[in-house]
């Protein structure tokens, strides 16, 4: 999932302070799953903002709504009327959702309520871990299902740096060394040959270095 984290209340408050009617728009997919921007978070944030503004003696009207996905027009349209009757939208979707709303409603200021952090997994209760960079050319078959592009702090393609010690990354002793994980996995799978020889430099074009990425699927066009 795309993992996001709600911005600090003070930052959100400052960004919406100039408006009198605000729509807090949640997103029911990734950010709901990571407890950053679903219905529950919309409700909690709305209450917190109302209270914070009330303390300042400011009356702000906050409307709450959550759609299934803010990155698809079909669902965005469900929010059209609410967006138009408010002064601004505080979107709790990832950056893609915020931009999709902005591009469709030229007259409405759209503000981000979360920081989009990474593509990751829920490792355990309360702990999300980044596991994919969306580099556009998946190499997990070579590396035993552990991504060096994302999980090695130096994006090393040819083995661990000199700072790997006791299975941990030199950058953070709480983080596993991706290369230790790769080697452990490949050893267990009997596939160490995958990493015994030189692996050439990466082509970063599919990862976004070639400019903003697009994916056109002719087979999906109706």
């Amino acid at each position, binding site marked *: 999932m795309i993992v996001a984290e709600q911005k600090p209340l003070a930052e959100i408050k400052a960004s919406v302070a100039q408006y009198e009617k605000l729509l807090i728009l949640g997103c029911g997919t990734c950010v709901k799953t990571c407890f950053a921007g679903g219905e529950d978070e919309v409700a909690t944030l709305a209450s917190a903002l109302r209270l914070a503004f009330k303390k300042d003696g400011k009356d702000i009207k906050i409307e709450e709504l959550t759609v299934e996905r803010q990155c698809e027009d079909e669902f965005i349209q469900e929010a059209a009327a609410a967006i138009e009757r408010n002064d601004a939208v505080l979107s709790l979707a990832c950056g893609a959702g915020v931009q999709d709303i902005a591009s469709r409603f030229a007259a409405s200021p759209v503000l981000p309520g979360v920081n989009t952090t990474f593509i990751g997994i829920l490792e355990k209760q309360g702990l999300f871990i980044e596991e994919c960079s969306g580099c556009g050319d998946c190499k997990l078959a070579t590396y035993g299902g552990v991504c060096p592009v994302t999980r090695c*702090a*130096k*994006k*090393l*393609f*040819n*083995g*661990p*740096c*000199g*700072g*790997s*010690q*006791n*299975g941990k990354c*030199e*950058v953070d002793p709480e983080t596993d*060394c991706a*290369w*230790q994980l790769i*080697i*452990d996995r490949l050893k267990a799978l009997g596939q160490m040959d995958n*990493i*015994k*020889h*030189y*692996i*050439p*430099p*990466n082509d*970063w074009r599919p990862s976004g270095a070639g400019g903003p990425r697009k994916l056109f699927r002719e087979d999906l066009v109706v």
Partner: protein
Amino acid sequence: MNKDKQSNLKQILESGGFAVTAECGPPRGADTEVVIEKGNLLKGYVDAVNVTDNQTAIVRMSSLAACVHLKQMGLEPIMQMVTRDRNRIALQSDIMGAYSLGIKNILCLSGDHQTFGSQPDALNVFDIDSMHLLNMLKTMRDEGKDMSGFELNESPQMFIGAAANPFADPFEYRVIRLAKKIEAGAQFIQTQCIYNMPRFREWLRMAREEGLTEKAYVLGGITPLKSARMAKYMAANVAGMDIPDEVIRRLEGVPKEKAAAEGIKICLETIAELRQEKGVSGVHIMAIENEAKVGGIVEAAGLMPRPKAV
């Protein structure tokens, strides 16, 4: 700038000599005098001087500029180059520039992560890794082509080096990685500081068995410890550093004012042991901000006089 002259380090190693290299960290500022002072401390005692490239991710005078200053003083620089700060375009360009200024040796590294440095808010690059940098240099030199396959009008004839850390994990992959570095283009290897001799010997034995010490020259890393405190600090805080407890206890076992001398004694013992090891072709002395000690160590180790450059 004497482009035609061969690398002195390469000649010494190829003729079977026991090479001595040292490290010189450029200053945090543009003061040339600092480089010249360090150069003067090392001149005559070493065959070549490694010039670090923003080591520990702390911003310093560029390695290339400091290399040129040392070269003008008659020392032979080994330009260190990390892939942390520059993409492949900048790296290739700087390699050509360095060779045009007479730099003949290069050490290819990935580089310390920027979160350790003075500007942890910086973006890193890591477009390529140290293995790729080695291969890029080898291709430029031997095939006369840049990474796109474009034919260079003159190829940089560099003596190519890599680092190895026998003390990092996973241990069993360390020799595989060494083999990969040699396959990619490394001709000489400088190791992490050696304090754990049994582990170094084990790594060396594995490297010898793979025939790797026949394919590249291994220079053992030496760093004089100034105090028990320094040893403890390095053991705890420097990634990939292995300082056994007995080394720390040995430094604690002498009066404080004699700890530095004890540290040098440890270095001398290590050098003597390394000279007995088959497959070790020299030592690399990294006296961090302690360059004044290098000459004494080389002399006391019986490694003087250094062979004359031809």
